[in-house]
């Protein structure tokens, strides 16, 4: 039902091949060891080569509407997110490229900043990552409560605080760090800074250990007197008049929430394919169990297809620079529970055969739960939707 241009279809085929050859095995290995693949893994170099996956998602050599040579292609990122998560969500999140930081650059950065911070990705000699750090130990869903402070210090800024749940943060060239000039200002006080690798005071505390999705780094940082030049403030100071900074953060989420949901669709598809395969092998002839399984599978397909369309629609709006707060949250609200049900149904169809560690399904069941938490829990999405449709006050 989905029509894609030949270039995008070609890219999807490439992701599929990379997934089959590298990502699934790498994901299983990371799950076994508990550690993400090393940054110098040959797979990452392969993705970063000239004309490879990273440059395709970035749209290298394709000019954006504002003339920027390098940008970030939301639809390609969305489809790549789905297909790569089909093979392994953890490894999918570890793919080289600007990552969530790319979405922040798209939402906030000046054309010069975009060119500057995305330029390293045009160097194909090694894999490179970008990252974004918003969540703090005391501020998760309610991002307005972040406490990391940004203080003017001469021509520079000085950052102090702590960040956690920063994907690929330890291997990133730069991290977009959200901080506040005054916690009392709430959302109006937010600023986004690009903190470059090796900046003094920007210290990795640890790589977290998780129930699942172990194929990517989840880093925690301390920021202790980190000095950042003024030109690393995304969009420049003028961008942050009256809630502009918070709007930038929200605009970033409006791009990344559908990506997150699309990863779920990929995981759900993986579970669906396991279940389809199981039914073909184990229930070749008609019978009550086969019929019950087929009915479950058709429900999974319906819900996954709906989730996919919600993601595509939200990103389609973003590509047209139309407001998509509502639709991005709807995609993010809808997909994770659907994917959870898909994986649970596949496990039920497979029965006890599904729970063994050497079967992919039990890993999917552990991998999937974070989908409903990261990028805003389903409860947060309901609040966002209710604010949009019902005028629900923020304090409700």
């Amino acid at each position: 039902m989905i029509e894609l241009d030949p270039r995008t279809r070609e890219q999807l085929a490439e992701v599929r091949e990379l997934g089959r050859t590298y990502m699934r095995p790498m994901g299983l290995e990371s799950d076994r060891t508990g550690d993400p693949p090393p940054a110098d893994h040959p797979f990452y170099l392969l993705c970063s080569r000239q004309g490879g996956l990273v440059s395709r998602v970035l749209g290298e050599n394709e000019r954006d509407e504002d003339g920027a040579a390098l940008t970030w292609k939301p639809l390609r990122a969305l489809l790549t997110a789905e297909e790569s998560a089909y093979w392994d969500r953890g490894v999918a999140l570890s793919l080289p490229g600007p990552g969530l930081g790319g979405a922040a650059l798209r939402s906030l950065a000046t054309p010069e900043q975009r060119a500057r911070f995305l330029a390293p990705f045009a160097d194909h000699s090694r894999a490179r990552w970008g990252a974004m750090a918003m969540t703090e130990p005391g501020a998760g869903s309610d991002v307005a409560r972040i406490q990391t402070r940004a203080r003017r210090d001469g021509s520079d800024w000085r950052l102090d605080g702590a960040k956690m749940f920063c994907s690929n943060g330890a291997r990133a060239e730069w991290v977009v760090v959200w901080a506040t000039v005054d916690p009392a200002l709430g959302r109006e006080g937010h600023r986004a800074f690009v903190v470059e690798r090796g900046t003094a005071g920007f210290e990795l505390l640890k790589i977290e250990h998780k129930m699942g999705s172990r194929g990517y780094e989840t880093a925690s940082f301390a920021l202790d007197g980190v000095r950042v030049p003024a030109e690393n403030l995304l969009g420049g100071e003028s961008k942050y008049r009256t809630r502009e900074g918070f709007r930038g953060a929200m605009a970033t989420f409006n791009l990344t929430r559908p990506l997150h949901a699309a990863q779920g669709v990929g995981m759900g598809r993986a579970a669906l394919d396991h279940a389809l395969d199981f039914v073909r092998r184990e229930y070749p002839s008609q019978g009550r169990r086969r019929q019950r399984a087929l009915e479950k599978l058709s429900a999974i397909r319906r819900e996954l297809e709906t989730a996919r369309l919600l993601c595509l629609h939200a990103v389609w709006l973003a590509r047209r620079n139309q407001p998509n707060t509502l639709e991005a949250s709807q995609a993010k609200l809808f997909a994770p529970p659907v994917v959870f049900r898909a994986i649970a149904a596949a496990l039920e169809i497979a029965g006890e055969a599904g729970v063994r560690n050497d079967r992919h399904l039990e890993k999917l069941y552990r991998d999937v739960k974070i989908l409903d938490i990261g990028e805003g829990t389903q409860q947060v999405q309901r609040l966002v939707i209710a604010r949009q449709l019902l005028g629900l006050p923020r304090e409700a």
Partner: protein
Amino acid sequence: MTDFALPVEIEQLRAEAERFASLELVPHARAHEKSLCWSAAVLDVLAKLGLREVDLPGDWGGADAGVLAKVVLLETLASGDAGGLPAADQPGLATGALAACPDAGLARRIAAECLAGRASLALVCADPEAPELTPAIHWAPSWPQLRWAFVSRGDALALFELTRALEPARALAFGASGGVGGALAGASKLGEWTLARHQGVTLRGRARLWCGAVALGVAQSAFDATVRYTTERVVFGKPVAHHQGNAFELAVAATSLHGARLLVRAAAAALDRAAADAGFWATEAWIAAVEAAVAVSDLGVQLLGGHGFLVDHLAEKRFREARMLALLAGGRDLAEADLAELVLEVPDSLTQGGPP
């Protein structure tokens, strides 16, 4: 389908239908339900909008504008009043059966009668395990006079011409379409065919999509009315909708409705492309749409409290319509059976591949 914008001509049709629905259908919905029909004035406007013609092929006298245009038009009209749509739209639910009928001359003749408003055509979706193709019509619109009935069972299709009028039969909803029912036993069989594989699912899918599109309109109007009421009415110091328990339910309802609409439109586009799996996706879309409509319309009654139970509001009408739309075209069990037949074969819509 990565472009979600409606083509300009469909958007124009939608806008015209929206004006008509809000100005002419909503205010008279109760009167129409009571009189068991839509007024001549309403039917005149529907004729100008091309309700019957829009998705029919040009050589039948149709506008050939496609199924996508049709589902958008149906949804929009239903958001005003769905009551008379099953009667007013002929061949309506049976369009897919008519298109699949191997006797092209007969199909063209029936289409012409339907387009002229002189007769109506019913579709009965029969249990694939039923012994014969002559089941009963449980409910069909009573106007225009029911003259033919297709019976679809698996990949078998039969066409009957009724030789006597059926008995009046009131139903749960769609009062403005009137209602008749009865056995087809005495009807004259004009033909019986075995269709190519999946044609049966496609024609039933098209009927289901008709119901799905109407369900979207019913659900959207139910949602909008619920939001209007619950954001005005104050309980325990704040609007009903601003209590988080209610707000969350409304957020979920809106999301289900939005998702169902995307699925219905994507399935319509697949039917327009004559995609091999269009019947599968149309059936899936119908389930999504009626599930959303049943949930939203139930919420509509629930959040209006006692008012929702009264005929002073249209909430209870939408509640009944949503449920009935989930029962037409053979109902859920037949749809599940059709899907189960195909779920192992239909490729993924994005990758077009099965398991790697």
